[in-house]
């Protein structure tokens, strides 16, 4: 579903965020992307959503080589990727309904269908009945769930999330992760960037750790993160997460 093939990303200021990164994520997989700040997690996600383009190398998303996607085709490309952000990126002057409906309006879905699908998406994140609230009336956790509803409302095959639990307490984080898990169970490919150790311990899914712009560790699903906690880098990330 997502394949990085010797990908380099160098920013105009000279910083090399990704260097010779190769990674393959299968359709229907759920993967944690870990590593401390500056390891290249955000850059990797930005390449997938075409916010940035690779400097060198090939990146294939859902069968499409991103190098072949022209500027005009970027919007259509992005519609097949649901994105969740640490800061939710909700529109504060619009209702929850309008926020979640935005991808459907863009895709040209009919009004009736929009109503149905928005309510279904809000139901999935446990916010049915809050359609007419505005984002600021909701708690941070609820706002994040609205962000998730917006990301999945158009049923994209890929869902990527950049530190979705960064501002949440452990209990809310688990709740959010469970929502991701449920989408994964119905076949959505999910990629979550997080350095939240607590989460990693609770979800024994595949974990890819980045370091210096390349894959440092790739732990398959089923092995608890706790068994690998001897890695000092992870201890540092863990303390970072605690102080946030």
């Amino acid at each position, binding site marked *: 579903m997502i394949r990085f093939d010797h990908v380099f990303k160098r920013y105009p200021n000279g910083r090399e965020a990704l260097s010779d990164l190769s990674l393959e994520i299968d359709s229907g997989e759920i993967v944690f992307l870990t590593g401390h700040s500056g390891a290249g997690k955000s850059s990797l996600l930005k390449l997938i959503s075409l*916010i940035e383009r690779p400097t060198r190398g090939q990146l294939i998303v859902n069968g499409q080589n991103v190098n072949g996607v022209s500027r*005009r085709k970027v*919007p259509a490309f992005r519609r097949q990727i649901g994105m969740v952000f640490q800061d939710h*990126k*909700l529109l504060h002057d619009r209702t929850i309904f309008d926020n979640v409906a935005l991808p459907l309006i863009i*895709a*040209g879905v*009919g009004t009736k269908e929009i109503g149905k699908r928005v309510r279904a998406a809000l139901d999935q994140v446990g916010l049915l009945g809050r359609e007419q609230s505005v984002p600021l009336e909701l708690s941070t956790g609820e706002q994040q769930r609205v962000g998730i509803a917006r990301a999945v409302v158009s049923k994209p095959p890929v869902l990527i999330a950049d530190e979705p639990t960064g501002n949440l307490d452990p209990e809310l984080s688990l709740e959010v992760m469970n929502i991701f898990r449920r989408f994964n169970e119905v076949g959505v490919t999910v990629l979550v960037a997080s350095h939240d150790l607590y989460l990693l311990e609770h979800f024994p899914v595949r974990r890819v750790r980045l370091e210096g712009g390349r894959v440092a560790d790739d732990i398959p699903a089923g092995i608890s993160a706790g068994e690998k906690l001897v890695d000092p880098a992870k201890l540092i990330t863990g303390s970072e997460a605690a102080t946030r």
Partner: protein
Amino acid sequence: MIAWLTRHAQTSIGSLGRLSQHKLATLLTVLVIGIALALPACLHLLISNAQNATGNWNKAVDLTVFLKRPTSAEEATRTGERIKQRRDVSNVELVTADAALKEFRQDSGFGSAIDALNENPLPHTLVVTPAADFTTSANLDSLAADLRAMPSVEIVQLDTAWVNRLNAILETVRRGLIAAAALLALGVMVIVGNTIRLDIQNRRAEIEVTKLVGGSDAFVRRPFLYSGIWYGLGGGITAWIITAAVIGVLREPITRLAGLYGSAYQLGGLNPRDTLILLGGGIVLGWLGSYLAASRHLRAIEPT
């Protein structure tokens, strides 16, 4: 198709709603556009009214044809008949030398001086009234030239010079109007463009998010284009109101002035066609201004 129309309707109403949220700013922008559009509209009315008013004056122009002396009364009648047969002449009145002298004697008070003359110094005169369809100055000039070429004709007097001068002045003003209208149209586009530019800056976050979830350039641009259209339409309506007010203020004194000249002339306002052009022009300029601004500034906003 219905979904597409619904979406456009929603976007346009959404834009209108957003404009009404910032009442004062919107009102000021619309007012500035309205004034800019009202100026050429008023100028246009000034010229078309002046042309209407002077268009009738050509009709009042008769040609006075003085025949050579000596020409017999019979010859004068024959000449008059010949002229009357022309397509562009509606009537010819013969004032014989004797009749002219009699009239002159009565009106001037030089009766005894005229009695001292041995013979009548006045020529026979034909007063030629052009046909109503041939009162343009070109037609009058060619009629006068033809009459001058007749053997028994001495002088043809045609008093259209001042009408021609006035028409030339009006033509100059009309050209000036076109230049002024072009400049003001450019001004309207700049006003709308700048307003849209500020709007785009204020809604940066929203634009970024829309692009992130897959909004195309056209989709992101659409609400701004509708804003531009609303600004243009509002400006057009404002301009119409301003123009109507100006006409309303001037109508009564102009009718009175025309009355003093014995004319029933009425000041004309904007006809339906003018109104359509004013509103349509406003919309097109608003759209164009917002299109240019949106195309230029939206491209620069990309999610990071």
